């Protein structure tokens, strides 16, 4: 029968081993992450956070599920549409769901677009294909 000291050993050794592997994998995977980011995209990310866009939208699948996924928003809607939305001073209500009228300057809107473009170019292990109407299954249906 398992003793308390054996159970304790299981906890400490198991934790230590998995922690070391986790740190190793972290170092390995972060070495391969391309952190080069245009200045405009970095400014865009700051605006994204300042306005808590993740409080309604999702990006790379992370957020609040209330408003559309934005990973591929530039490919889907085009720059002009996105710029128009961000610069609008009038509150608007796409398909009945209200969005705050941010009334951004052109510079700010362009920075946001640079951020979306940067995200849109990333390899997301297949998720980039799921965003919008190009899910793998939908794509197969279209081919059929």
């Amino acid at each position: 029968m398992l003793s308390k000291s054996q159970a304790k050993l299981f906890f400490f050794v198991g934790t230590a081993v998995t922690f070391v592997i986790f740190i190793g994998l972290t170092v390995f995977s972060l070495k391969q992450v391309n952190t080069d980011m245009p200045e405009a995209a970095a400014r865009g990310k700051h605006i994204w956070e300042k306005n808590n866009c993740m409080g309604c939208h999702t990006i790379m699948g992370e957020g609040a599920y209330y408003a559309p996924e934005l990973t591929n928003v530039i490919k889907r809607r085009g720059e002009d549409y996105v710029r128009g939305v961000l610069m609008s001073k009038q509150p608007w209500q796409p398909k009945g769901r209200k969005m705050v009228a941010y009334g951004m300057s052109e510079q700010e809107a362009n920075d946001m677009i640079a951020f979306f473009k940067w995200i849109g170019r990333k390899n997301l292990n297949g998720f980039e294909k799921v965003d919008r109407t190009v899910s793998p299954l939908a794509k197969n249906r279209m081919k059929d």
Partner: protein
Amino acid sequence: MKYRTQKVAYWFWALSMLLLVIQLTYGFFMGFAHLGYDGLHKWIPFNTSHTVHLNTLVVWLISGFMGAAYYIIPEESETELCCPKLAYLQLIALTVVGVAALTGYHFNWWEGRKFLEIPHELDYLVALDVVLFLAILVITMAKGKRRTTTSFVLVGGLVGAALLYLPGMLQFDSQTLDSFFRWWVVHLWVEGVWELIMGGILAFLLIKLTGVDREVIEKWLYVVIGLTFLSGILGTGHHYYYIGVHKIWLIVGGIFSALEPLAFLAMTLWAVSMYRKGERKHPNKIALYWTLGAAITSFLGAGVLGLAHTLPQVNLYTHGTLVTAMHGHLAFWGAYAMIVFAIMTYAMPNLTGRKFYDTPSGRMAFWLTNVGMAIHVSALAAAGVTQVYLERILGYDFGDVQKYLYPHFWVLIIGATIFSTGITIYLIDFIRYGLPKDEALATT
């Protein structure tokens, strides 16, 4: 109660209950907004409601854990709490940070990172508050007559939670790195060190309520938390599938997160078998309901519903949909909210001297909250699966799909109303208990 200073716990739990009411109120704002009724949009847009809903959850649970620690550690260490006045100061500091953050969220003062929206400036105050809290606990344990595994696991979990808050304070331009380290906080809290806190509280309650030998309960506590870290640390990888890092996380995250339910299953089996083995018939049956309920519901919410969408082949479609919200609600309720209710229900008669042990209102609060949450989660499940099918498989537009989800959100509102009725009954009981009294010292 056995020690006068355990009274501190009451005030942390009172703060928890107040924050829970705010959380539920904003939850209703969100539910109705999903149905198109968002008349408060001008003053409280959805992102504000969402942030308040999430952050009040995190803070009321943390305040609940702090109350639990202030109640448990003196009893486990067989000594009065060190510096109770500092503990009250720590409570005030926590309240100030909470009020400042919640107010700030209504004026665009936030970080815009899910779960970690608290403004960066307030992070330092949080860190100071937590250091003070941990210092009080560690000094109490050091001067205590007894050192137990239960107290070490509980405080170990709290120390871990404090340390893991630090990566969340790092700031990156890259969304990938930002997300990567944000999960060090969020995942390694809820699927890591918070399970230690839960395990510590559960062990304390099982010892008190079942009368099973401490050595037996604490032995299995080690096994449960061992399984937690064995699966949970590398299980972090399931958050790294689609954020722009190496695909090795698809394999590592997939395998280890699929093992995560084992820790919750072990916790359920542990709690139920200790209950069966126990010879003590503690009169506080409602506390036992909450204790066993936490062990079982955490397995269903965090374990089973987590497993339902954790494999990369499935998660590719469910990621970023209401399926995640389904899992999140039952996981937080079962694992962490219910364990806070369990310790409060156990401790309140001891703190106040009023023995409302097995009351109809206590039972009603337990069942209404759980039935309400089951309906709420079922509605989110139906909405999530519908969303996945229409949006991700058939390729419908996001906005069009949302309208198909209205019936599910009406069911969600019904579930939330039943749940809130249960919470209201619990709160009425909480108030009926009155304030903690020194006279209660003799009655425990």
